[in-house]
């Protein structure tokens, strides 16, 4: 996925870009609204993350201005948690908003939700052997058989899908799966992996346990 991040705080932008890159997204960064306009003229994006207060204007005004020709979904980053402010942003054509400071997993969840809502326009699919994994819809397609996954199962499978054949440790999986403040033990990972194993049983995907190291996804190529 290609994201455009419009944010004037370089430190924050840096962290967001790094984090989104981990998920395999390419992020262009614009510090001002005029740079953002240039970016939009030059490339096409799947999602825009837009700060409200920017050095050369209000992000919401920009949104209202560009909404006429812009079809890309927009998530507004706001420092205000007042409902009235949120209503303002949504009225001007934002698809969602997130209040600073935000949890990365929440940002990710909201991006996913917005992209899923917009449907059709954007596809984010990974082929795992015989199976097509739709990351936005959270489905696994094997021929004409479609399997729907739950939120956490999607994320777990996504981690495996991005690193095919690679061994992933329990702590690596934990970081992706749980918010930092959830008190979880490594046993929880075993529970979720076990659950996912049962779900995908019999559709040509297999999660192998590598004793002492972690897990690895295997596709049974036909």
């Amino acid at each position, binding site marked *: 996925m290609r994201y455009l991040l419009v944010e004037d705080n370089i430190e924050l932008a840096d962290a967001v870009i790094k984090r989104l890159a981990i998920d395999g997204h390419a992020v262009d960064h614009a510090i001002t609204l005029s740079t953002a306009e240039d970016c939009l003229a030059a490339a096409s994006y799947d999602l825009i993350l837009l700060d409200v*207060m920017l050095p050369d204007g209000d992000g919401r005004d920009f949104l209202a201005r560009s909404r006429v020709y812009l079809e890309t979904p927009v998530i507004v980053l706001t420092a205000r948690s007042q*409902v009235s402010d949120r209503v303002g942003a949504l009225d001007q054509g934002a698809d969602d908003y997130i209040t600073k400071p935000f949890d990365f997993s929440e940002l990710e969840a909201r991006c996913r939700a917005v992209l899923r809502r917009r449907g059709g326009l954007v596809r984010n699919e990974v082929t795992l052997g015989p199976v097509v994994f739709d990351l936005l819809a959270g489905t696994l397609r094997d021929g004409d058989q479609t399997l729907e996954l739950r939120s956490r199962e999607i994320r777990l499978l996504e981690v495996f899908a991005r690193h095919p054949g690679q061994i992933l440790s329990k702590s690596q999986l934990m*970081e992706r799966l749980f918010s930092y403040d959830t008190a979880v033990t490594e046993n929880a990972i075993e529970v979720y992996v076990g659950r996912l194993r049962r779900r995908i049983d019999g559709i040509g995907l297999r999660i192998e346990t590598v004793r002492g190291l972690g897990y690895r996804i295997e596709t049974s190529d036909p």
Partner: protein
Amino acid sequence: MTFETRSIGRRLTLLLAGVAALLSLLSWGMVTALAREATQRTQDNVLAASATTIAETLRSEQGEVRLELPYAAFSMLGAISEDRVFYRVTADGDTLTGYDDLPQPMAGRRGQIVFDTANYVGVPIRIASISRRILAGDGPVLVAVTVGQTRDGAGAIAAELSRLAAILSVAFFLVAVALSAFVAQTSLRPLNEIAAAVSRRGPSDLRPLERPAPADLAPLLTALNRLMARLGESISRSEDFIAEAAHRIRTPLATVRAQAEIALRTVSSEPEKDRLRRIIRAVDESSRSAGQLLDHATVAFRIEDLASDNLDLADLASQTVAAMDPTASMRDIRLHLQTASAQITGDAVLLETAIRNVLDNAIKYSPEDTTVTLTITRNESEACLTVMDQGPGLGDEPVAVLTERFRRGNNTDGIVGSGLGLTIAADVLRAHSGRLELTTAPNRSEGACVSLVLPLA
């Protein structure tokens, strides 16, 4: 609070009525005096005519003064009233005929009639007297004719006129009072219209009043508009200030949090990870408190001047569910909404804030992979949105304690919270004449059940 002196309208009415009363009294007095004067003159004229008629019949005959009392002289007196008539004719002071004790006014010049008022036989009478010189025998004799009449008739007429005048004065006074009230009201109408125009306005309408007003009210209108402009400016300045402050505080917090989260992925030592987690936790706590304090301030501000939009509780609930769903699904918590349309009146922003705070609580305290159920029910007068979770419940503290500011339940260990969520919800509902009901779910040993009860529109 408002310091009230006597109303201008009443003061104006009273003042005008006072003037009218004074004028009525004066006019009554004048009419009465004029009536008395007029009746007296009429009587005087008749008396004079009568005296003159008698005097004209005087002649001298064989050296003696002779007179024939003409009937007409008395009948004309009888024509105006039933009053008793007295007469006396004297020649050089000796009574020729008539009542010789009838007072005779000092004779004026010859041929001139003199009037007087005197008491005779115990009643006041009016007297007219005329004198003539008549040549009789050995020289001119001064003959005086005096005619008197009691004043009952004249007095009655004067009293009757005075009574009529009194009635007219009272009527005049009453009409004047009514007119005064009308005038007072009419002249105050522009003032009332301005007041109505101001109070008709919505809570946030601070546009200047642009309407025709009498020249006298122009300074008031100008002052009012200037005040509204200043108020609007100050409100928008403080709103801008809050927004700016929030931005300046929360963007660095967001940076700290984001960088800490990145660092959490790169460090491997457990004590360091723990330290980073604590940093993130502190950031979350402060930003959450800031957010809810802001919400609380917004609620307090908006409750002062409550908007009354027509809303469907089902729409509000489903909007809130849509906004919270990504957060809930991160922990595999399902939001299950059972809606039934329920029309209510209120402030959409406030009600959404209340629902969001209650739902946020439910999600926060729910264990993973559970369901939060939102149900709308209604009876004939009330709509009720119930949010039920499968969490640990609300503990055993009473509602009043749980909705206290900064108070958190006694089983909230390990969860970030400010303790303002339920306070905000309770405040919003109270402002909408509704209430917040807290119970622990009926059919389970666990789970909180929070109901937002609102009167139907």
